[in-house]
């Protein structure tokens, strides 16, 4: 009988398994892929600070460091966010193929059992906990556990089977396509964001440098607004922006842009990361929140084992922790996303013009909104209360 079975060895699952194992729990981490971290479904950008909270930085999985971000609206207006001191890196672009494996190894090192090429098919309740049904190399396998942590990403079936989350609607998910391109001519000190209803309906396009003239060039669109598949928007963006380079890798994926769910727990079950729709509704970033959620889930798992209480009402401690950490931000950014979705391109241009050339020293949604409010007092009524 395991204390915890964690489904999915992404950042959320590996962090949960590592944390629980470090607390002395008997942990099984299962991953359906044969190679953790591939194929990549990510643009790999993360702020330095949010990464440092949970892992010791290792250059092996840092592809590039950036000092700021540049945002472009359809008429080419540029908004720059950058640290004041040059050379003060605020963001990383990871090599997730290596990063995700590193995290899984940390979990293994802490004592968790790790099994790959194994899929969780479902679970049933028993007297003492749960019986989890697995398929390992085509063969059925069952394990018993006190707790199940669903860290199975955007495809999460655990959360739906447990009745914790509902299936995402096509207005609650970003459909994404990306190329890793080489031979690019870009200033590698910045990440780049391109907005516009024509360009990327309900989303944006991005260029995240990965060093040595290469970068992740991608796009996300809301299927409820998009008229074509994300890949077509990406090809059109690359052509119109005149991006010249060679495509050396293909990436597709999806990110939940749901906002904050009420609860991520049920009896014996906790969800973390994309499985709990923990990614940000404005940026689509989810690595930092996945790490945080995994960490908190691991801690609460150890408390639950110590108290022998696996009820949803006890596991709600985990809800309190992730909500206090970043849940409030998901809630706020969902409201902002709804506001931004209503803007036409010309409003977007004029809002950007109102803050173009201003010195925005921090790379965050908060910093942009603060600057927008300062220069457009009329917006106060719309979302002033979100930022007061």
């Amino acid at each position, binding site marked *: 009988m395991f204390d915890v079975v964690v489904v999915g060895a992404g950042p959320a699952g590996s962090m949960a398994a590592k944390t629980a194992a470090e607390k002395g729990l008997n942990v099984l981490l299962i991953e*359906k*892929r*044969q190679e953790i971290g591939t*194929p990549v*479904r990510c643009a790999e950008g993360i702020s330095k600070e949010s990464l440092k909270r949970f892992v010791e930085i290792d250059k092996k999985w840092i592809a590039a460091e950036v000092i700021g971000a540049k945002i472009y609206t359809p008429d080419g207006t540029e908004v720059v966010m950058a640290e004041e001191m040059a050379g003060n890196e605020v963001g990383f672009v990871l090599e997730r193929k290596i990063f995700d494996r590193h995290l899984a190894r940390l979990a293994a090192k802490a004592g968790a059992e790790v099994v790959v*090429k194994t*899929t969780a098919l479902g679970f049933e309740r028993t007297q003492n906990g749960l019986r989890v049904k697995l398929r390992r190399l085509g063969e059925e396998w069952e394990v018993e556990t006190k707790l199940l942590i669903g860290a199975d*990403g*955007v*495809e*999460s*079936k655990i959360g*739906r089977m447990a009745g914790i989350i509902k*299936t*995402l*609607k*096509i207005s609650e*998910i970003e*459909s*994404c*396509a990306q190329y890793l391109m080489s031979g690019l001519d870009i200033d590698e000190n910045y990440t780049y964001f391109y907005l516009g209803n024509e360009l990327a309906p309900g989303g944006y396009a991005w260029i995240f440098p990965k060093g040595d003239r290469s970068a992740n060039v991608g796009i996300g669109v809301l*299927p*409820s607004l*998009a008229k*074509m*598949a*994300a*890949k*077509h928007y990406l090809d059109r963006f690359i052509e119109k922006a005149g991006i010249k380079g060679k495509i050396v890798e*293909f*990436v*597709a*994926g*999806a990110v*939940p842009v749901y906002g904050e769910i009420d609860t991520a727990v049920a009896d014996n079950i906790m969800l973390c990361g994309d499985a709990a729709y923990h990614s940000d509704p404005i940026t689509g970033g989810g690595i930092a929140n996945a790490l945080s959620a995994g960490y908190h889930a691991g801690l609460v798992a150890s408390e639950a084992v110590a108290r022998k209480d696996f009820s949803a009402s006890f596991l709600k401690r985990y809800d309190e922790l992730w909500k206090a950490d970043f849940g409030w931000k998901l809630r706020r950014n969902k409201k902002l996303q709804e506001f931004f979705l209503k803007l036409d391109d010309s409003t977007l241009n004029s809002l950007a013009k109102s803050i173009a050339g201003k010195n925005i020293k921090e790379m965050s949604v908060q910093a942009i909104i603060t600057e927008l409010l300062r220069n457009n007092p009329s917006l106060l009524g719309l979302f002033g209360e979100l930022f007061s």
Partner: protein
Amino acid sequence: MPKRAVVDRRKCAYCGACVAVCNLNANELIETYLEINENCNGCGICVKTCPMGALSLAEV
């Protein structure tokens, strides 16, 4: 004629976006291999969501 989602394996980039939006638990991503089962009612939601344009509806 009832319809069902079909996948063009040569286009599919096995990303799981279609699994995230299917209400009927009618698809599963087995590593690099998407399976669509008989639960599919041809609602077309996954077709709209696929980033690669790898899904379409076909009569069964």
